[in-house]
């Protein structure tokens, strides 16, 4: 309902809305142009061919796009905590998380999802994969689990905003930064960094581990083979942690009193 309200409000300025949808598509498209430009100069990156990098890009981009569409507004919560307008939300008979996620709901973020999906489909056309039933099921599961993991990270980041209203940018380094990281093959990054995104902030489960299985490549940094199938489980754990943090955040919330 909150989302619907914001959609109607955005439609008030139609020209501006059309521009934002197109640019949102382009922003992410330019992101991909960079990869195209890189492959204009080289044959492979870290031992990965273009189609393989495109698969990584497509899976990470789609998962991130879905998470951004549903939870992207959480970043704004810091200013709502600061100026006290979060109080209005607490008065309404609806879950706070749903309201904050719907706050300034931006339909334009569909641009990002569409672009990710296009690259994903394109990469699948280019790739020469020995498809098995397991791989066919794994791919959509990966995208959905990936979106949930990114979403959980966004909720976790927003929970921190109850205490530190100005820290929204830290979440960006895990979400936007993670998205950029996962678009490239793990082979080009330092081993410790890869271990970090497997065991500390489990971003590797968004796409790296399952995608490497689809591509018949070994898992990075000595991670066991079965980890490729652990994404849904990891996503569930992430949600649990994020949920606990969110509740702790609400309890710790003190209104500005203005």
């Amino acid at each position: 309902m909150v989302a619907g309200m914001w959609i109607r409000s955005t439609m008030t300025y139609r020209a501006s809305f059309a521009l934002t949808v197109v640019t949102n598509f382009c922003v992410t498209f330019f992101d991909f142009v960079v990869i195209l430009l890189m492959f204009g100069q080289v044959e492979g990156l870290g031992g990965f061919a273009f189609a393989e990098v495109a698969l990584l890009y497509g899976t990470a981009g789609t998962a991130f796009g879905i998470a951004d569409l549903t939870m992207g507004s959480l970043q704004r919560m810091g200013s709502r905590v600061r100026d006290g307008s979060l109080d209005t939300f607490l008065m309404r008979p609806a879950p706070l998380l749903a309201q904050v996620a719907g706050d300034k709901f931006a339909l334009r973020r569909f641009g990002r999802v569409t672009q990710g999906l296009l690259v994903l489909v394109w990469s699948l056309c280019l790739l020469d994969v020995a498809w098995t039933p397991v791989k066919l099921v794994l791919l959509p599961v990966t995208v959905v689990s990936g979106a949930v993991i990114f979403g959980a990270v966004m909720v976790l980041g927003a929970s921190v905003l109850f205490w530190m209203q100005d820290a929204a940018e830290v979440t960006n380094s895990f979400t936007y930064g993670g998205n950029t990281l996962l678009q490239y093959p793990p082979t080009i990054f330092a081993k410790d960094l890869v271990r970090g995104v497997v065991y500390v902030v489990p971003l590797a489960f968004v796409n790296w581990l399952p995608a490497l299985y689809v591509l018949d490549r070994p898992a990075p940094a000595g991670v066991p083979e079965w980890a490729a199938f652990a994404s849904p489980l990891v996503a569930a754990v992430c949600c649990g942690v994020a949920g606990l943090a969110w509740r702790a955040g609400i309890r710790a919330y003190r209104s500005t009193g203005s």
Partner: protein
Amino acid sequence: MRLYATVAAGGFRRHATYRVATAAGVFTNTVFGFILSYTYIALWDERPQLGGYSMDDALAYVWIGQALITVCGMMGGGFEDELIERIRTGDIAVDLYRPADLQIWWFSANLGRSAYQLLGRGIAPMAAGWLAFRFTLPAGPGSWLAFMVAVALGSTVGFAIWYLVAMSAFWLMDGQGVVQVAWLGGLFFSGMLLPLNVFPGALGEVARVLPWASLLQVPADVYLGTYEGWELAGAYAFQGGWALVLLGAGRAVQAAATRKVVVQGG
């Protein structure tokens, strides 16, 4: 003059109060710096001397970019949202009554902001990046000075671009669309994602003469010592030229807007 100096100092102090935001920004810039550094290493491993840069030069480029994002306003000037909001709500009418020039007022405030961002968000990520990757440093104090001049000019061009963007709100009311277009241009054509001298063919030639090249590509090349003597003067002239053109356009649009401004609200 005194007035504008006070406004600039105010801009500096205002941003200096957001310490947590600064720390969060430093953290984010450092993380992105690391990710980009590894992708550049993979790229320059395959193609050494790509775009005329050595690996150490390319890594320096990454961290200069992270240090200057907020200083030169590649992905947003940091003031346009506020200015657009004032135009949308009609508060701008109060500003226009003040005995100060609107453009110079905002320029001063942005100057203070920019200076703070350089100290607060520029130095720390660059130091962290240098400790991890030992990239190229400027030859001496003279080169550092030349670099700072290029940064100051870049910051001016950045302001001029975003001021024009904000002025569009007088006609469109909702500035979001134009902001996004400018954000897109800034991200791609400033060379944030990939140095402009790596862009191929005509795309590269066009990208290198657009105003956004003043924000990162020119300062980075000055830092790396690409320009000497008259070439350096030419690089400054390129930035200064764009600054004058865009600031002039900003003035013209401002004049047109104030002639026909319809104030919103009661």
